[in-house]
Structure formats: C-alpha cells, structure tokens
C-alpha cells in the first residue's frame, strides 16, 4: 500500500509537469490545428536556461528559492522569444499550405532547436547544482510510509497555479476571448476586428512560457538536463493532450495527470506483474536465468516510456476525440 501511494505521488508530480506541457500543445492545436512538435524543445531550452542561471548564481549566497525564481524569470522570456520566432519564421508562411507541410516544418524546427542547444550547452548531461535542500515528509506514522518531498509539493502547487492563471487568462480577459474566437473561426474573428496574427503569436508565447516553467520543474525534479530531453517529454505531453481530447484545456490537464500516473504505476508494477520466474517449475530454461536474477521480469521499469505511447495508440484507435473531446475530430 505504501508503494502504491508513493507511486501515486510520483505519478501526480510527473503528471502535473506533463499537464503543463500538454497545455502548450493543446492551445496551439486549438487555435491553428498544428501539432507543434517543437514544443518539447521549448521545454528543453527552458530547462537549459534555468540550468545556466542556477549554476551561475549557485555560489552567490542568495536564497535558493530566489535563485530558482530568477532562473524561471530568465527562462520565460527566452522561451517566449523562441516560440514567437518559430511561429513568425516557420509556421506563419505555411498557414495556408497543405497540412503536412507545417507538421514536417515543426519536426525540422525541433531538430534545429536540439542542435542549437547542443552547440550552446554541449551534449553532456548537465546536472543542476543542489541548491534546494531536499526534504521528505512522511505521509504516515511508520518509517516505511510514502514520502513527499518539498520539490514535489512545489511542482504540484506551481502547476496548479499555472493552470488556474491560464484558465483565468482564457476565460476572463479580452485576449482570452480573442483566442477562443480565433480558435472557433479565424475568418470571422478577423472580420470582427481581432488581429489574428497577434492572437496566434500570443498563443505561441503563452504556450512557450508554460513550457519554460515546465522545463524548470523537470530540471529541478530530475536534477538533470540534456539537449534531447525535450523529444520524449514532448511526445508524452502530446499523448496526454490527445488522451484528454486535443484542443480542450481541461482535457490536457486530465490527460497529463493520467499519463503521469500510468507511467509511474507502470514503472512500479509492470515488473512484478510480468515476472516470469513463476514459470520456473513448469517450463525448462528459466532456472539459470531466475537464479541469477530472481526478479527477472519481461517488462521492468526501463519500459516506462512505452506506456504513454501505447495509451496514445489505444486512444487514437478507440476514441480519437479523446476523453473530454466533444467534437469528433474530422482528422481521425
């Protein structure tokens, strides 16, 4: 039971990060029906910028929370600039092109951003300096009960705050009204005096700033950043957005949390479920293997990255509109 709660906590933390990244995907998709493959790379650049700032300021004697805040504040404008630039340079000229063209452009942008990051930050795993003292809090009375760390709490709180801020922005401000109008019908929105280009740029920038914050969170959670980290993260977040129903903000959050949970529980339990050593008595050939490695399972925690994709494929096959998607996508 303790393990279960522990995996639940880990999964929720991870899910919060996925949810924030998925929001960036789903916003862009909602407004121009483009899968912005490069969004994962924006997250990566956010983490990298935060890494640079934190490393530079680690020895300065400033309070750690303040340093992380500064790092986030540095990452946001950089990512916004990246988001704006890619929309302006790559996607805007292709807005009326066939659908595959911007998609492939997005892949190209993603490769370019990866290699720019490779040139700036090297190909090594960059480990974040441990400036924040990790503190674990037990969720029960016994020593073996599940724990939650202060970083995990911070990630969850920040994510929830970001989601609330985003919802407020979309449903309470003029900008939000303009965004919703554009996503429903760009032509008519334009006729109503909304500057579509500004709205789309803003969407990219808001998505990118969410990505920046997610990058800082991922970096501080795993303590490591790498120029390829955005690819898998982006793909999983996209799976989350599809799971929830792409274009739907609540769906992105739900999908993110579910993907996080599936991944954590899959990593925690699939190893035990697929342990083949119970076959030892019945089938030949297992004895030597199981002696050397009694936990020899078919799918250990090293397969955790697979579950998100399996979920993605299942969702697309059985319910392409996603869990909360009200419109059945004419694309699927």
């Amino acid at each position: 039971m303790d393990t279960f709660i522990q995996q639940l906590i880990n999964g929720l933390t991870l899910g919060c990060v996925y949810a924030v990244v998925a929001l960036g995907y789903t916003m862009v998709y909602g407004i121009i029906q483009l899968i912005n493959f490069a969004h994962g790379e924006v997250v990566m650049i956010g983490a990298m910028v935060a890494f640079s700032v934190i490393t530079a300021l680690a020895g300065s004697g400033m309070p750690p929370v303040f340093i992380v805040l500064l790092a986030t504040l540095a990452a946001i404008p950089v990512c916004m600039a990246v988001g704006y630039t890619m929309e302006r340079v790559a996607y805007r000229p292709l807005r009326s092109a066939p659908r595959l063209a911007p998609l492939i452009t997005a892949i190209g942008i993603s490769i370019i951003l990866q290699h720019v990051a490779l040139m700036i930050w090297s190909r090594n795993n960059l480990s974040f300096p441990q400036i924040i003292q990790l503190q674990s809090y037990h969720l029960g009375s016994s020593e073996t009960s599940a724990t939650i760390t202060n970083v995990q709490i911070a990630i969850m709180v920040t994510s929830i705050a970001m989601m609330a801020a985003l919802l407020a922005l979309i449903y309470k401000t003029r900008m939000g009204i303009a965004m919703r109008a554009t996503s429903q019908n760009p032509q008519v929105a334009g006729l109503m005096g909304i500057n579509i280009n500004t709205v789309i740029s803003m969407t990219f920038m808001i998505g990118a700033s969410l990505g920046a914050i997610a990058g800082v969170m991922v970096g501080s959670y795993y303590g490591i950043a790498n120029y390829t980290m955005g690819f898998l993260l982006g793909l999983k977040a996209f799976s989350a957005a599809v799971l929830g129903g792409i274009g739907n903000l609540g769906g992105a959050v739900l999908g993110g949390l579910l993907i996080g949970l599936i991944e954590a529980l899959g990593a925690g339990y699939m190893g035990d479920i697929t342990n083949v050593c119970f076959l030892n008595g019945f089938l030949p050939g297992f004895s030597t293997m199981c002696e050397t490695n009694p936990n020899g399972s078919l799918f250990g925690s090293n397969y955790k990255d697979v579950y998100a994709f399996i979920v993605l494929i299942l969702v697309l096959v059985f319910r392409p509109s996603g869990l909360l998607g009200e419109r059945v996508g004419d694309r699927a």
Partner: protein
Amino acid sequence: MNAATWSSNPRLKWFGIACVAVALIALPFVLAMAGTAWVRITNFAILFVLLSLGLNIVVGFAGLLDLGYIAFYAVGAYVYALLASPHFGLHLPWWMILPIGAFIACVFGILLGSPTLKLRGDYLAIVTLGFGEIVRIFMNNLSDPINITNGPKGISTIDSIKLAGLDFGGSTRIGDFVLSGTIKYYFFLLAIMLIVIVINFRLQNSRRARRTRNGHQHHSHETAGVCHGRIFRRHRRRHVLGHPGIHQPGELCTQRKRDGAGDGGARRHGQYLGRGARCSIALFCA
C-alpha cells in the same frame, strides 16, 4: 537545354546516361584518392537515397506521413545483426536473410498498419512516431531477462556480405589492382540503388499505384481521397509494400557498420541513421 529535348532526342539521352554511368563508376576511385572516408560518406549517401526511395513509397505515393520509418530500418538492421553475428552464433548468408528481413519487416508493417490505418494526416504521423519510439525502447531494453538485442551496447562484429565468393569486408586484388572493401560496397549499393529505382518507376506506373496516386492528389483534401473508396485497403498494401524496401538499407547499414570504427554496434547505428531518416523525411518533403 531543357528536359523535353533530352528525352525527345534518344541519341542525346543515351549519351547523357552514358556520361552519368561513367561518372558514377569513376567516382569512388577519384574519391579514394582523397581518402577512403569520402567513399564511405558516398556510400552513406546512397544508403540515404535507398531510405528516401522507400519512404517515398509510403509518403509520396500513398500520402501517409510515416514517422516510424526508423522502426523498420531498425528491424532490418537487427534481423541481419542477429542472424549473421557471433551474438547467437548464427552466420546465415546475406541472400537468405534478405527475404527473412523482408518478411519480418512486413509483419511489423502489418502490426503497425492494422490499428492505425484508419487514422490520417497528423494523427497517423504521431502514432507512427510513437511506434518508432516503442521499437527503439524495446531494442534498447531487450537484453533482460533474455538477451536478444544486447541492449544499448548493440551487436558488434557483424559478418560482412559475401556474394558469389566475393567478400565485401576486405580488399580484393585483381592483378595489380587493389579493390578496397569500401569501394566494393559502393558498387554493391549502387547496383541495389539502381534496382530499387527501377522498381520504384515500375511501381509508379502500375495500375494500383496510379489509383493510389489519385488518392494522393486528393490527399491535400484527405476526406475527398477517402471517398475514393478502397483507399484504406490500398494504403495498407502500400504500407506493407513500402517496408521491404526499407529493411534493405537497414541490413546494408549493419553491413557498412562492420568495417566502421567500432562505435557501438548495430543498434546505435540504427538509431543514428534513424535520425537521419527523420532528416530525410524533412528533406524529401521540403
């Protein structure tokens, strides 16, 4: 001189073809003077041509954006690596592995195709991308509990191709003339490339392909393409058909790897070139 005069004047056309042929035959020897590395790069270029030709069947003819192309490439590479290396102690000849690899790649093609071919456009792209990732992760992890792929370390010391008594691994001496393994691979790859190109042209003009292309022309308005009736079945066939072409470069690539600088074996190589395939997708469609 424009293309019309080229093709309308058969003499000129054959002259052009002869020029290209002479240039292609002379190329590796000229490059070898500058260093064998250049020949090797050319070989990789041909490999990429093969990959793009295979991808062209799926993306170009059928209009399915398949980003999981890498997976089939990896399957082909691994089939060769497993059946012709000391890893399992198997040393099957190359021509025998070719159909096996094609068959297994087809199985994977059906595996991917059956659930996903009702999807279109960007959704298909995403699913195939996910499929590619799944295959990559599996290749990376299938070393435990039963060691199949040797994990991230990959499979090394893969056999070189031996055809009709000719070993492509080392150099051959013909009189005073030494033909290095890399140059032999060049001609081998060139021959395969020509065969694949011919097959591609034949395919392009076949009845089935013309119908598929009709679908493809509608592809920018996919819904219209689907109304074209049997498009799904056609697509699926195309999917299966596309892949034998793909697995081939995979096998060849493991081949090329063998005389490479021993940097990690088939898997990493597959991954590296798999990335390359992603680039070639981008290049092709640009």
